[in-house]
C-alpha cells in the first residue's frame, strides 16, 4: 500500500508539503524530508512492496484502489459518517462565522467534480490545513496533524481528517469562549456525490475566516510540488526534458488565468489517465464564473492537480521521492501562471511519451478493469 500524503514541514501548511512519506504534523524530530525518507528502512520496505505490487500487475491495484466498502480502510459506517461529519463541521463553522462577523461564502462552481476517494481525501486535508491555520491565528498553537494511513487511501482516512479538522474548529471556539450548543441532529442527507462540493464550500468558507488567506504564494508552492512530481514521472523517459525552460514572465495575470492553465494541466492528466486506463475527476468549467475566482479557489485546483499527479506517481513514478515544497516568498498570480507553464510543458511531454508507448519502458500498462470509484 502506498502511504498517505501528509505535510512535511512543521505546522505551517504548504511548507514543503509532499506525499508518499510517513510522519505527522507538528511533531518536532519526526518531520521527514526526502533524504531521511530515502534512507529510512521502513520506507525502503514499503517501496519494495509497491514495486512488487506493480510487478504483479495493475489489476491488483485496481482492486485495492476501489473505494468501496470492501476495500481496506473503508467501512460502510465510515461512508455514511462522512456526510454527517461534514454537516457537523458546517454547523459549527457557521456559528464561528457569525461570531467572527465574517461574510458567508457564496455558492461557487469550481468547474471540477470528483467522487474519487483520493480527491475527497485531499480536500479534507486542505480543510484541515486551513482550520489549523485559523487555530494558530487565534490561539497561537498548532494542532497535531492527522495520522497517516499506511495503506491505500480509504474513507476512514477522509473521516479521520474531517474529525481532526472539526476538533480543531471546536478548539478555536473554546478559545473564543463560544458556548457549546446542545447536541443537534446533523443532517446526513448529503450523499457521496455531494461530498466533494460540500468540502469545496467549507474550504472556501474557512478561507474567509482567515487573517492570512491562502495566497498566490501558496498556489505557487503547490504548483512547484506538482512540477517535482511531473519531473519524477518524466525521469522514466531518457529523452525527456524533465525541467523545461521557464516561459517568459507575463504580468497582469489574474487568478482566473492561473486557474485556466491549471485546468489545462488537469485535462492533460485526464488524457494520460485515459490512455493508461485510470479514472480521474470530471472537468466542466462552462458554469464557472471566472470573475469570482480567488487564490484560495486556485489553490484547491492546484491541490487537485497534485493529487492526480501523486496518483500517477504512485503508479508510474520511480523510487526517488519528490522534493519538498518550500515557501517561495511573496508571489503574484503572474508568477504562478509562469510556473504553471513549466508544469504544462512537462505534462505535454508526458502525454506524448505515454501516447507513443502506453506501456512505458520496463512498465506494464495499467489495465484495470474495475473502476476506481
Amino acid at each position, binding site marked *: 500500500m502506498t502511504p498517505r500524503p501528509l505535510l512535511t514541514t512543521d505546522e505551517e501548511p504548504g511548507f514543503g508539503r509532499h506525499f508518499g512519506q510517513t510522519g505527522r504534523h507538528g511533531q*518536532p524530530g519526526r518531520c521527514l524530508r526526502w*533524504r531521511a525518507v530515502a534512507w529510512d528502512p521502513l520506507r525502503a520496505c514499503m517501496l519494495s512492496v509497491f514495486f512488487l505490487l506493480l510487478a504483479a500487475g495493475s489489476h491488483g491495484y485496481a482492486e485495492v484502489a476501489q473505494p468501496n466498502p470492501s476495500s481496506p480502510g473503508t467501512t460502510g459506517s465510515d461512508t455514511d459518517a462522512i456526510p454527517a461529519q461534514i454537516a457537523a463541521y458546517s454547523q459549527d463553522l457557521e456559528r464561528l462565522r457569525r461570531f467572527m462577523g465574517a461574510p458567508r461564502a457564496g455558492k461557487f462552481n469550481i468547474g471540477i467534480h470528483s467522487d474519487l476517494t483520493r480527491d475527497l481525501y485531499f480536500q479534507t486535508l486542505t480543510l484541515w490545513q486551513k482550520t489549523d491555520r485559523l487555530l494558530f491565528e487565534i490561539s*497561537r498553537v498548532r494542532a497535531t496533524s492527522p495520522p497517516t494511513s499506511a495503506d491505500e487511501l480509504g474513507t476512514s482516512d477522509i473521516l479521520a481528517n474531517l474529525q481532526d479538522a472539526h476538533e480543531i474548529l471546536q478548539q478555536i471556539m473554546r478559545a473564543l469562549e463560544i458556548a457549546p450548543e446542545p447536541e443537534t441532529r446533523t443532517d446526513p442527507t448529503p450523499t457521496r456525490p455531494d461530498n466533494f462540493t460540500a468540502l469545496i464550500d467549507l474550504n472556501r468558507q474557512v478561507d474567509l475566516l482567515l487573517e492570512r488567506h491562502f495566497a498566490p504564494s501558496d498556489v505557487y508552492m503547490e504548483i512547484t510540488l506538482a512540477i517535482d512530481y511531473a*519531473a519524477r514521472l518524466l*525521469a522514466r523517459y*531518457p529523452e525527456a526534458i524533465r525541467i523545461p525552460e521557464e516561459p517568459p514572465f507575463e504580468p497582469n495575470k489574474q487568478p482566473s488565468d492561473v486557474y485556466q492553465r491549471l485546468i489545462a494541466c488537469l485535462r492533460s492528466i485526464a488524457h494520460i489517465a485515459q490512455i493508461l486506463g485510470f479514472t480521474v475527476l470530471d472537468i466542466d468549467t462552462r458554469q464557472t464564473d471566472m470573475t469570482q475566482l480567488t487564490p484560495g479557489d486556485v489553490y484547491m485546483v492546484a491541490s487537485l492537480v497534485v493529487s492526480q499527479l501523486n496518483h500517477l506517481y504512485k503508479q508510474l513514478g520511480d523510487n526517488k521521492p519528490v522534493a519538498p515544497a*518550500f*515557501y517561495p516568498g511573496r508571489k503574484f498570480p503572474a508568477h504562478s501562471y509562469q510556473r504553471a507553464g513549466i508544469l504544462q510543458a512537462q505534462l505535454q511531454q508526458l502525454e506524448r511519451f505515454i501516447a507513443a508507448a502506453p506501456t512505458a519502458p520496463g512498465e506494464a500498462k495499467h489495465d484495470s478493469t474495475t473502476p476506481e470509484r
Partner: protein
Amino acid sequence: MTPPRQNAEHAAQKHPLHRRLLFSHLSVALVGVGMLLVALVSTYELRARVILLVNEGVPLAQASTQMLAGVRHSLASLRGWVSLGDPQFLVDWRAAWQQEIQPAIERIKQCRHLLAGRSCDPERLRELQALLADLQESQWWVQEVARAPGNEPARMTYLFKVEPSVRELASITAALLALEETTRESDDGRKPLLVRLMEIQGALAGSHLLLRETLGPDGLHYIERLERQLGTTQALVAQATADPLLTLEQGRLLRLFQREWQAFITFAGEIIRQRRAVDWNIALHRLAAETDPMANRTIALATTMAADAKIRLEQEADAARAASAITVWNLAIMILVMLAVAYGMSRKHARDLALPIAALAEATQKLAMGSLSDNLIANGNDELSELARSFNTMRTSMQQAQTVLREAYAQLEQRVMERTAQLETTNYSLIKEIAVRNQTEAALRESEARLRAMTRAMPDLVFVVDEDGRYREVLAAGRDIGATLMRGKVPAPIRGKLLSEVHPPEMAALFLDIILRALRTQQIQIAEYELETSSGPRWFESRTAPLDVQFTDRSTIPANTAQQHLFPPPDVQIVAKSAAIVVARDITKRKQAEVQLRQAQKMHAIGQLTGGIAHDFNNLLAVIMGNLELLHEQLAAQPRLHELAQQALRAVDRGANLTRRLLAFARRQPLLAQPTDLNKLILGMLDLMRRTLGANIQIDTMLATDLKQTLVDPDQLESALLNLAINARDAMPRGGKLALETGNVQLDENYAATQQDVRPGPYVMLAVRDNGGGMAPEVLEHAFEPFFTTKETSKGSGLGLSMVYGLVKQSGGHIAIHSKLGQGTTVRLYLPQMQVAASPPTGVKAADTVFKGHGETILVVEDDTDVRLFAVNALRALGYDTRQAGDAAAALELLGATPQIVLLFTDIVLPGEMDGVKLAAEAQRRYPGLRVLFTSGYTEHPLIVGGQLAEDVEILAKPYRKNELGQKLRILLG
C-alpha cells in the same frame, strides 16, 4: 569451314614468339594485380580505422572534455548562486547546461561506432544520460530553493510564528504599561510594579533581538545567550504574575501575556532546534548531500567513459598502425617477387629475340650500303624467321626496282631542264609586274595619308552615309562628334548606325532627304539646320556630295520569296548601295555673331533715329525755354501768369531731360570722362540709394579691394547706377536684396567673338544683382530698346536701361544682362580699365551765385534764327553785348569787324562747309586768345571723340537755361 577456335590455335602455333611474349606479360600483370589486391584490402581496413578515428574518436574526446567541463561549470555556478545570490551565476549555470553539457551529450551520442565497442557500451551512455538528468533536476531544485525564504526553516518559523507572537506580546506589554501609568496617578507606591513591567518589556525585546541573531550565519553563537535571556524573561514574568500590586485588569492582561509567552518560548525552541539541525539551510544541505555526490558520480562515470574511449582510440590507432605496417611489408614483398619474375622472363625472351634481330640489323646496314646480294638465313618457324624471309624477298624486289628507277631518272632529268627554262621566262615577267604594283600601292598609301591628315586637320564633321541613311564611314569627327550627334546620350561609335538611331526622327528624315536629293541630282546640297546636342542647341552647315563609290551590303532574302524557289540554297545576297559624303560645319558662333550684329545694327539705327529727333527737338526746346525764361522774368508782376510760365518751364525741363536720355542712348551726349574709382562712387551713393530704394530692400556690396580705375563720366554713371537700382527695386515690390559688386575682369577672345562691339582686354566690372521676379526671354530681348518698358504707363519712361546702354557703349565698355523668371536679374557693366594713372579731375565748378556779365562782347553763331534770337536775348539779359551770325562766313566777317569780341558762342552744326568747330579753329587761329563756347543739340563730330569732349573744349548742351549759359560764360571769361 574452320572453326574460330582452331584458327586461334593455328595462329598461336604459327606465332610462338607472340605466345611467349604474351605469356611473359600476363605473368607480370598477374603478379601486379595480386599485389594491388593485397594493397587494396590493407588500405581499406586502414581507411576504415582512420575514418573512425577522425569522425568519432576526436569528437568523442572533445565532447567528453566539454561535458566534464560543463558539469564542473554548472556546479561552480550553482555554488556561486547559493552562496552569493548573484543572478549572473544563474545565467552561467543555464549556459553550462545549454551550451556545454547538452551539446556534448548529443555529440557523444553521434559516435555510434566507437560507442558500440565493448569499452563504451550504450548502457553506460544511458546511465550517464540518466545521471546528468538527475543532476540537472537536482541542481534546478537547489537553485530554486536557494534564494527562497523557505530555504531556511528557522527563518520561516520566525516569519510566520515568532513575529505575530512578538507583536501580540508587545501590544499586551504596552497595554499593561498604559494601565499602570493610569493607575499610578492615584497611587505613588506602585513604582516597583512599573519597573518590573518595564524590565519585562526590555527582556522581551532582548529575547526577540537574540532570537533574530540566531537566524544569521553565526546564529549558533547566540543560542546560549538566547536561552539565558529566555530564562530571565520567564523569571520576570513569573515575578510580575505574583506581584500583589497587580490590578484585576493587569492580572488578566498578564495571563494573556503568559500564554503568548509560552507560545513564544515554544517557537524559540523550535527555531533553536531548526538552527542546530544539519539541514538548517536546505539548499546548502542538498547541494552537499545530493547534488555534489551526484555530480561526482557523473564526473567519475564520464571520466571512465572518456578513459575507455581513449583506450579504444589507442587500440584503433595501434590497429591502424599495424595495418599500415602489414600493407607496407606486403607491398614490398610483392614488388620483389614481381621484379624477379619479370627479370627472369625478360632475360630469356630478350636473348631469344636479340640474335635474329642483330642479324637482321646487319643485313639492313649492308642493304643500306648498296649490297643487295646477301640473303639472310631463315630456317626457323617463328616470326623472326618469317621476317628474314620477307627481308630476302624485299631485297630481290629492290634489285629489280633499282634498274627501272635508273631509266626513269634519265627521262625525268630531261623534262626538268625543259620546264626550268619556261619558269625562268615567267618569273621575269612577274617581277616586272610586282614592281609596277608596288609603285601603285605606294602612291595610294601616300594619297590616303594625305587624305587622313587633311580630314584630321578639318574642324568639320565628315562622314559617308548610304542611301538607306546608314553611316558608312566617319572620316573626320570634328571636335566632339559624340556630343554633337548623340543628342546627349553616351557617346558611342556611330559607324553602322542609321540616321534615325542617332538623330530625332524629323532630323533623320531631313538628312535622308538631303542625301537622296544629292544622289538624285548628282549635285552638292547645302543645308543649315539646328541640332540639339549635349552642349545645347548648335547650328550646322552641311554640304552633301554624291560619292562615286558604291558600298556593298549583305542582305537576307526573305524565306517565302519567289527567288527562293529559283535559287534555293543561298539566303544571303550582296546588294550595292549608293552613298554620299557629308561635310558638316559647326556654325553656331557665326549664327550667334549674326544675331549680335543684327541686334547691334538695330540699336544703331534706333540710336540714329533718336539722336536726330533729339537734336531737332533740342533746338525747339532751346527756343521755347529761352523765350519762356524771358517771359517768366517779365511776368514777375503777374503772379498768375508767372506761375503758368513757371509750369511751362518745368515741362520744358522734363522735355530737355527726355532728350538728354535719348542722346545718351544714342551715344551723342557729351561726356565729361574722368578717372573714376567705382568703389568710391558706389560708397558715395549708398545713402542716396538706401533712401531711394526704401527699408525693405537690403543693399549688399562686394567691392574688390584692388579695383582699377576707369575713365567714365561719373555723373552719368551715377545716374545709370541709380536707374539700375530703381529697376531692381521695381522688380522686388515685396522687398529683397540688391547686390553691388565690383571687380577686375578680363574679357577673352572667345567671349569677344560671341559679342558685338567688344574688344578683348581688361575691364572694370560693376554688377548690379537683384533677387526679384526676373525677365522672360522675350522681354530680355528688348530690354535696351528706348521706350520699351514692362512697367505701368505712368511708372517708367522706358529709357533707363537705354541710357545705361548708351553710356556704357559711349564709354567704350560692354553691358551684359542675365535674367530668368523668378531668379532675379544681374546687369554687368564692363568699363575699360585705365592703363596709366590719371590725375584727378581739375574741373572747377563755378559758384552758383553771380553769372552776370560785365558788358563783354560775345559773338553768337547759330543757324536757327529762333535759337539765335533766344541766345542773344539771354546774353543781353545777362549783361553782355552781343553780335550774331547765321553761318561761319558771316561770323568771320563780324570777328574781323568787331575786335572787342572776346568770346565766340557757336553752334557746332552750321550750314555750309565750315561747321562750328572749324569756325572756332579758324577764329582762334586769326585771333589768338579768343575764347570759344560750343553749343549743340547733339555732338556727332570729331570734336567729340568716342563721345568724349576734347581737352579744353567747353560745350553747352541744348536746350540750356540762361543761368547755365551765364555760368559757362563766367567760367570762360574768368
